[in-house]
């Protein structure tokens, strides 16, 4: 890490700001800053403006709680999307992953996190009530729970299914198992056991 005393104040302060970002350490931060120093002013300006625009113009959709510029968001207003399917994700970024597949044509609901009492996050801290209300008013046929396959994602999925199944809706969750193009030889025992548990008829 550069010695803070030996470097111009604005440079040190930008390195400091960059290194607060996830996955960016002090070395990467320094590389980014020295890269920007060598670029034209216009490029730095458009980066700065893009960052501010994210904060100023993006807000949460009042229906699905995804991030959007207009409320309701384009995914919620798009009439071509299947109203009988509702996919529950933890974070708005998960919508981005699912949309890249082009395999899902329904709507979304963003919980805003996963249940974890250890971290002070109970159902009340997430948009669970809003989900139950939507199931009541929009009457989807199937809820697809797309939380991560870890302990918190699993508990959240089981909890939601306890709330939603009595409402007369089918609740499903994403399958666990082997990656496509993978090789049984290289699958760890735990994943392989999960895949075996979740086997299906051909």
């Amino acid at each position, binding site marked *: 890490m550069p010695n803070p005393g030996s470097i111009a104040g604005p440079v040190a302060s930008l390195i400091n700001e960059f290194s607060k970002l996830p996955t960016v350490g002090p070395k990467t931060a320094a590389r980014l800053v020295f890269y920007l120093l060598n670029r034209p002013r216009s490029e730095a300006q458009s980066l700065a403006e893009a960052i501010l625009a994210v904060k100023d113009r993006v807000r949460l959709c009042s229906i699905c709680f995804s991030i959007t510029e207009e409320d309701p968001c384009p995914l919620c207003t798009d009439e071509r999307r299947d109203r009988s399917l509702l996919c529950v994700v933890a974070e708005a970024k998960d919508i981005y992953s699912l949309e890249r597949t082009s395999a899902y044509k329904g709507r979304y609901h963003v919980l805003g996190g996963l*249940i*974890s*009492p*250890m971290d*002070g996050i*109970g*159902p009340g801290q997430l948009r669970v009530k809003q989900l139950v209300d939507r199931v009541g008013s929009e009457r989807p046929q199937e809820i697809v729970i797309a939380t991560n396959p870890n*302990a918190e994602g*699993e*508990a959240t999925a*089981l*909890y939601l299914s*306890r*709330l939603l199944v009595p409402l007369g809706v089918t609740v499903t969750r994403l399958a666990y198992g082997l990656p496509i193009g993978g090789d049984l030889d290289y699958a*760890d*025992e*735990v994943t392989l*056991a999960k895949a075996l548990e979740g086997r299906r008829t051909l």
Partner: protein
Amino acid sequence: MRLSWLALSNVRNYAALDFHPAPGLNVFIGANAQGKSNLLEAISLLGTGKSFRTNREADLIASGFQSASVSGGAHVRAGSVNLSCTVTATSRGTRKAYSANGRPVRYAAFLGTLNVVTFVPADLQLIAGAPSGRRRVLNGALAQEQPLYYRDLVRYQKALAQKSALLRSADEPDADLMAVYNETLVAAGTALMLARDRFVTAANAEAGRAHAAWSGGRETLELRYEPNVPYEIPTGEAIGAALAQRLRAAAAAERARRIPLAGPHRDDLGLLLDGRSLAAYGSQGQQRTAVLALKVAEYTVMHQRTGEAPLLLLDDVLSELDADRARAFLEGVEAYEQAFVTATHLPHDLPQSRVFTIEAAVLREIASTARARAC
């Protein structure tokens, strides 16, 4: 299995070490604080990803450095495998990375490649100590032997921590959420209990056999699985039903006391001599002998079940035993393929072994004997 080479980098007092152990017995002699235990600790890190001495993993990193790394090559039944474990200091503690044959692997996949059984002086307090120490013996052996046991243990512990937090958070915690955690506790807990039951049954036979040989059949040692939630027969169905029923029955008391009261996190391993509790009635000597038998059993059962002899790590423990017990122990684990032993003085009557001195983290071979004698 057998370790063919071991390399240390910035691990405790070792700046760098490149060591080629022999098959059989490797004995390290040296004064205190020269690095004998550190060497065994490094081997255990390669096997279990954990230190047998400390929970403060930052202590493993030599002072003034950012990371410590242990790598080694092992001959296992499937062929030869190169393993490494690197501990790196971070702003929030430490981070560990594992690799097998040069590819990064997750801990769950790393564990169980190179199995180790450790025996340290603190183990001699196992019988008089708290149940957590005896549960650690069961968990340590089973997690190395069965990857799925480790998965279930982690699942159980995570769900238990969440349930504890939920109980603390409110007088009337969300009943649906409580049911979700209890469901996970029953599923994972049943698997743990079933595996523990079978392990203790197998270990009981081995410990009894070893003990009978040493006592000339005058005393009978029994290991007994003492589950917190009793059940009729050791099947998944019976255990699952008993555990679910007990959690339902304990629900009100758990809410009142705000802690999880029932389940395999409160299991114990009972050791009895002629039907009487060793913790309550056993002499120091009887307790020591029983711990030796328990360690022989741990070793033998792992050997039988994995089809491979684990590495045996004996840290400064032979000196805690009288000559008869030390010899009895080494005879009990006769089938060991490779063992690492530290001592301040060369023990009497060791089987064929290679002997090294360790002084200020420098290894020097002093003898390779058919039968090393005390110096």
